[in-house]
C-alpha cells in the first residue's frame, strides 16, 4: 500500500485531535534523583543482586583486572571475546590476558553472507564475553550498552558468561535521568540495550530458569573512579 493512502486512511478516522499535549510536570519524582554516590551504588548493587547478577567491587584497575582473571580461571576453555581495549574502563586487558594464555576471538562479523555464518559458528565456541558499559541504572540494577565501533553486541550476548566492567561515575539514578542527560543515546548507534540481570525464563510452569538464549551468568565489576 502507498504511504500516502495509508496515512490518509488514518487521518480520516481520527476524531478527536484536541487531546492535551503531554504534561511533563506529572513525571514521577524519585527519591534517588538527589541521592549521593554511595546511596546510588548501594541501591545499584541491591537491585542487581535481586535480579541475580553477581557484583564485585574493585578499588582500582588492578583489582578489577585480578577479578577478571579469577572469573576466567574457573572456565573450561581459554577463549573469550570482548569490546576493544580502548572501549573498556581499564587499560591493557587484552595484553594481560594474552600473557596468561587467554585467546581473544575477533568479534567483527563479516558482511559477506557465507563468511558471516562461519564467523558466528566460530564465536559460539567462546565461553566468556567482556564488555564495559555506557551507563548503569541504580533503581533497576541495569547496565546500558551501546553498539559503537569497538563495542560489538555479541560480546554481551553469545557467551554463557558476561563480565561487565563499570565505573562508579557511570551510575545514574533511573532510566529517565539517564535519558534526560544523554538524549542522543537513543539514536547515535544502531543498538542501545538495557540489560537487567542474566537471561531468564519462567515459561515452563512459572519456574525461574537462567540462561535461556543470552548469558546465564552476569558478573558486574564496579570500579571505584571517584
Amino acid at each position: 500500500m502507498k504511504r500516502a493512502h495509508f496515512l490518509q486512511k488514518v487521518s480520516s478516522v481520527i476524531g478527536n485531535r484536541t487531546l492535551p499535549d503531554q504534561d511533563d510536570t506529572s513525571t514521577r519524582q524519585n527519591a534517588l534523583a538527589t541521592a549521593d554516590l554511595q546511596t546510588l551504588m548501594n541501591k545499584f548493587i541491591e537491585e542487581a543482586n535481586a535480579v541475580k547478577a553477581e557484583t564485585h567491587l574493585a578499588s582500582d584497575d588492578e583489582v578489577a583486572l585480578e577479578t577478571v582473571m579469577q572469573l576466567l580461571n574457573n572456565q573450561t576453555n581459554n577463549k573469550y571475546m570482548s569490546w576493544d581495549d580502548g572501549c573498556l574502563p581499564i587499560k591493557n586487558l587484552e595484553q594481560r590476558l594474552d600473557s596468561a594464555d587467554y585467546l581473544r576471538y575477533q568479534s567483527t562479523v563479516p558482511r559477506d553472507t557465507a563468511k558471516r555464518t562461519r564467523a558466528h559458528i566460530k564465536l559460539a565456541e567462546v565461553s566468556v564475553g567482556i564488555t564495559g558499559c555506557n551507563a548503569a541504572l541504580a533503581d533497576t540494577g541495569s547496565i546500558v550498552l551501546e553498539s559503537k565501533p569497538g563495542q560489538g553486541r555479541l560480546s554481551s550476548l553469545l557467551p554463557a558468561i558476561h563480565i561487565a566492567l563499570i565505573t562508579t561515575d557511570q551510575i545514574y539514578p533511573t532510566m529517565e535521568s539517564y535519558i534526560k542527560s544523554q538524549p542522543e543515546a537513543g539514536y547515535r548507534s544502531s543498538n542501545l540495550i538495557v540489560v537487567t540481570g542474566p537471561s531468564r525464563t519462567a515459561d515452563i510452569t512459572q519456574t525461574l530458569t537462567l540462561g535461556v538464549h543470552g548469558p546465564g551468568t552476569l558478573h558486574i565489576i564496579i570500579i571505584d573512579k571517584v
Partner: protein
Amino acid sequence: MAATELSFYDRISDALANPDGQLAIAAGARAKYDNRARAMSEFPNMEITRDRARSIRAHTLSQLDKFLAEFADNVEALGGHIFWAKDAQECNQYINEIARAKDVQLVAKAKSMLTEEISLNQSLETSGIDVVETDLGEFIVQLSGDKPSHIIAPILHMTREDVGNVFKEKLNVPFSDDPATLNAIARAHMREIFLKADMGISGVNFGVSESGAICLVTNEGNGRLISTAPRIHVAVMGMERLVPTLADLSIMLQLLARSATGQKLSVYSNILCGPRRKNEYDGPEELHIVILDNGRSEILGSTLSEILYCIRCGACLNACPVFHSIGGHAYGSVYPGPVGSVLSPLLFGDPWNPLPHASSLCGACKEVCPVDIDLPGLLLKSRSQQIVKGKSPLWMRLSQWVYAITSCNPILFGLALRSGQVVSRLLANDGWFTTLPGPLQGWSIHRDFPALAQKSFRQLWDKPSQD
C-alpha cells in the same frame, strides 16, 4: 484468522472438562497477578505514572498520522526500509518477496502476537521456508503443534510433564520434567538456528517516532539474537504501537515489565535504531519495518478506539476470573482474556461476537491495566453494538423484544408479574429456585435463583402498610 469449528460454548465446556489444564492456568495466572501487585506496590508514584502512560497513549493516537510519518521518515533516514501494509495478505506477501529475493532458507522468530494474528509462519512455510520460533514457550507450542494460550506466557496451560513429553517425542531426548534440564536442551538446539538463520523476524513492542527506533522486550535474549545475528531483520509493527519520545518509552517499559511479570524492567530492553552502521562490529545488514493496519484504522475511528491503548502486558488476563476458569484456548483467538474479548470481534469479525459476553464485568481488568483502559465499559459497548447491528443471538433478540413490549404496557407487566409470583409460590423452595428448566439450567448448576417476592413493589406502593 479463521474461525474454529467448535463454538465458543463448546470450547468452554472442553476447557472446564480438563482439570489439569485448568489448575495450571489458574495457578500460573494467579502467580503473575501476585507478582504484578507486589511490583506495583513498590513503584514510587504508581498512579501518577499510570495516568502519564495513559495520556501518552491517548496523545499518540490522537495524532497517529503525524507520528507515523515522523517515525517512517526517521527509519528511512537511518537506512531502514518501511513497508505500509493494509492487511495480513500485503504484509505476508512483502516478507515472502524479501525472502525470495534474498535467498532466505531459514528464519528465526521472536515471539510476536501480531505475526500470529496474520498467520505469517504458515505463509512462509508454504513458500518452503523453515521458520523456527525461538521464545522457549513459543518453541514448545510450535513443536507440539499447539497454540499459545496467553499473550506473554504461551504455554501457561501445559504442565512440566507435558513439556517433557513434547521434547522426548520431537527432539529425541530422554524424558525429563526438570525445567532447567529442558531449558538447557532448548538452548543447545536453538543455538545453531540463531547462528545460521538468514532472517530474523520479530514484532515491535514500541516504535519511537522522534528517532525511528524500535524497542523489543525479551527476558530470554532471543529478541537480541534474532535482531543481531541474521543478515536481515524484519520487524512487524501494529500501526498503533508508537510512542513519541525516548522518555515516553522509558515510562512504558517500566509499566510493561511490572504489569507483565512483576519485574522492574525486563532483562533485555532492546532499542534498535536502523541496521548495522559503518564501522560497527555486528548487527543486521538490512532492517525492514512493516507497519500494519489490518483493521486497526477502523477501530481507531470507532467508539472502541480506547482498546488501541493496550501495550500487551497480559495483566488483564491474569486478573480475570473467567480466564482463570477457561484459559486462553477457549477464546479461540490469539488475543484472549478481557482485551481479547474486545479486540477479537473487531479484528476477526462476527464468529468472535460471543467473547464480550464472557465477563461478569467485575472490573478487575481495569484495575490492573497499566494504561487504565476501561475494559468493562468497552465490553458493554461491544455487546450493545452487537444488538444495535442486529448481530446478537436470536434467543436474546426475542427475549429482549418480549421484555420491551411487556415492560411498556402496565397491564401486560402486571400480568407477567402475577404469573411469576404464582410460579414462584408453586415451584420455589424457601424463596429460591434450585433448578431451572431448559436453557436456563446453566444458571442453576452452581447457584440458586431468587424467587419473586410475593408482594411486588407496585403492590406495596398501592397499599402502604398501616405501620
